[in-house]
């Protein structure tokens, strides 16, 4: 097309770059939720944790000038949110889904309230690793400016996948998640394990929020998440509680989300509302294709209130 543009190559490049740029919050929230759900509890409040994490990270980065401190502060608040959820849910006859929804609204409201004065200031951003130095094309260089959190997310997915199978903690988590009674018989306290699992999940979700406000799109405002935390919770079911699956599903969502703008930029402009629905259409297709008439929700932890 034009000498400075990269024409149709822009589409695969945008999907690739979008997969990396947009997926990171999905990766962290869905990995966090996997830990929580593997312990037999659902925390729907991660959308609130994500937004609160985004606000905390941004505010701390503005005040201290250090984005790393921002991420750490976000992790701490995420853990607090998770702990509150885990602590409330240990009482008998408390529904974890209802508490999750309440915690989501609480997190959103508190983040909007405390974040009011941080909409205007500009925070220092998280650094990215320029991996595109080999290419002479600025577009490729820009696409390969990858944030370190993405690699941490990828490594974490691999680690969790290994740890669920091969470590004592992974085994305890799975026992608690599959059968509360069996765990009790083994002398494990299900409430304590679930509390810790929910705290860890909240902490990871808040990193996703920190990525949103400190890297991409890299600003704090009240519409920063637009439902990404909720979507990531759904991704966990889609990925069948498998950390590697979560990582791949997050990439898929990121790439599909970049499709709409990329197609418009190369001149495929008709029906962009349909392209924007691509991630959801894709989810439906994969869920239908992988569903089975005989088994429901393969891989689901037995004690999860979804499966009960």
């Amino acid at each position, binding site marked *: *097309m*034009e*000498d*400075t*543009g*990269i*024409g149709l190559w*822009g589409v695969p*490049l*945008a999907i690739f*770059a*979008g997969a990396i*740029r*947009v997926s990171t919050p999905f990766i962290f929230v869905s990995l966090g939720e996997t830990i929580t759900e593997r312990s037999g509890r659902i925390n729907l409040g991660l959308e609130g944790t994500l937004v609160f994490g985004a606000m905390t990270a941004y505010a701390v980065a503005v005040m201290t000038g250090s984005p790393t401190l921002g991420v750490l502060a976000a992790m701490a608040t995420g853990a607090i949110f998770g702990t509150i959820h885990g602590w409330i849910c240990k009482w008998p006859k408390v529904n974890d889904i209802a508490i999750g929804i309440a915690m989501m609204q609480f997190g959103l409201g508190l983040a*909007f309230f405390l974040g*009011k004065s941080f*909409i*205007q200031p*500009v925070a220092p951003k998280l650094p990215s690793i320029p991996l595109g130095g080999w290419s002479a094309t600025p*577009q490729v260089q*820009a*696409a390969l400016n990858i944030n370190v959190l993405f690699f941490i997310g990828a490594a974490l997915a691999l680690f969790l996948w290994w740890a669920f199978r091969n470590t004592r903690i992974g085994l305890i988590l799975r026992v608690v998640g599959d059968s509360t009674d069996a765990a009790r018989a083994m002398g494990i306290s299900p409430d304590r394990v679930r509390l810790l699992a929910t705290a860890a999940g909240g902490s990871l979700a808040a990193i996703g929020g920190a990525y*949103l406000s400190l890297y*991409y*799109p*890299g*600003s704090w*405002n*009240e*519409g*920063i998440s*637009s439902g*990404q935390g909720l979507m990531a919770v759904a991704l966990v079911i889609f990925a069948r509680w498998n950390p590697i699956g979560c990582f791949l599903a997050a990439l898929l969502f990121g790439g599909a*989300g*970049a499709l*709409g*703008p*990329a197609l*418009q*930029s*190369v*001149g495929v*402009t*008709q*029906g*962009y*509302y349909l392209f*924007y629905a691509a991630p959801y259409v894709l989810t439906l297709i994969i869920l239908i294709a992988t569903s089975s008439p005989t088994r429901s929700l393969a891989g689901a932890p037995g004690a999860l209130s979804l499966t009960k």
Partner: protein
Amino acid sequence: MTKLLPMNRRNFLQASAAGLAAGTVPGLFGSQAMAQTALTVGFIYVGPKDDYGYNQAHAEGAAVIKKMPGITLVEEENVPETVDVQKTMESMINLDGATLLFPTSFGYFDPHMLAMAAKYPKVQFRHCGGLWTEGKHPANTGSYFGYIGQGQYLNGIAAGYASKSKKIGFVAAKPIPQVVQNINSFLLGARSVDPNITCQVIFTGEWSLAVKEAEATNALIDQGADVITCHVDSPKVVVETAAGRGAFICGYHANQSALAKDKYLTGAEWAWGNVYTNFIKAAQSGGKLGNFVHGGLKDGFVKMSPLGPAVSAEGRKKFEATLAEIMSGKFSVFKGPIKDNKGNVVVTAGKSFAEDAIELESMGYLVEGVVGSTS
């Protein structure tokens, strides 16, 4: 609830009395002695009022009238375009005693503001947008509205001089006539500098979607666009993303130069402070508020951000010459012959539209040179 209701009613009576005393009912009390009487004014925003965008532009206007004598300002942010805004208006009227309300978001008008206007006929409502129609809508309501298209035309001139790739980009929310007119004006401004320039437009489909706006900006720059502008509620993400990729920026809604530093060329900003000041002066002196108030750059409804350091001397000259022509009221952006980007003639040769021409308010076409589609 039962405890609150009587209190509401009492406050309502007080508020109505205050409204009468303040002379906000045109024609009833026109006395000069009331020029400085107390007046409570309510502003309602759809988003945060410091969003570097649409809401900030209105909040800056509200801050101007806050300094006027006798004015009590009540504001509420993040009010959705649902029945929530009716509750906000009722609370401003009953609890705060507001007698003049500015619900600033487009979707507040119908049915929310109209319902409240029928319920509180003594309160004055002025809505931002061009929706008020004489005879159809009550006399205590009205519209005020700015023509910012010429601002985008001036943005286009600055962009035309700054662009090396001859490709400029526009991140747009929804293909409504106002947005489409801004896109066309931006390109026509750039083409007045170099007729080979094209403008790529990406619609995000929503007024505020941070991640999609960032993706759209990246996609435009990947395709070679080197000057970016936008029409979304909060341009902050677009401005920061584009500046981060090294592209030039033309601002919109409010001044975003702090976000892009020397990458900021200029910007089309609202100047609501002037508009609100006129309303308040009319209300305090007992004059008519006006039901349909509109204007552009020359009327002081719209202003341009100061030119950035990246604008060349040549660009500055043409920008200022065009601005002077606009200020004289003789300029029109849409001068025939103009073709749309499908090849149809949309403005015939010899025909030209002033900025308030009714034909421009239903604009659904993208002009030749704009790469994109409205559906």
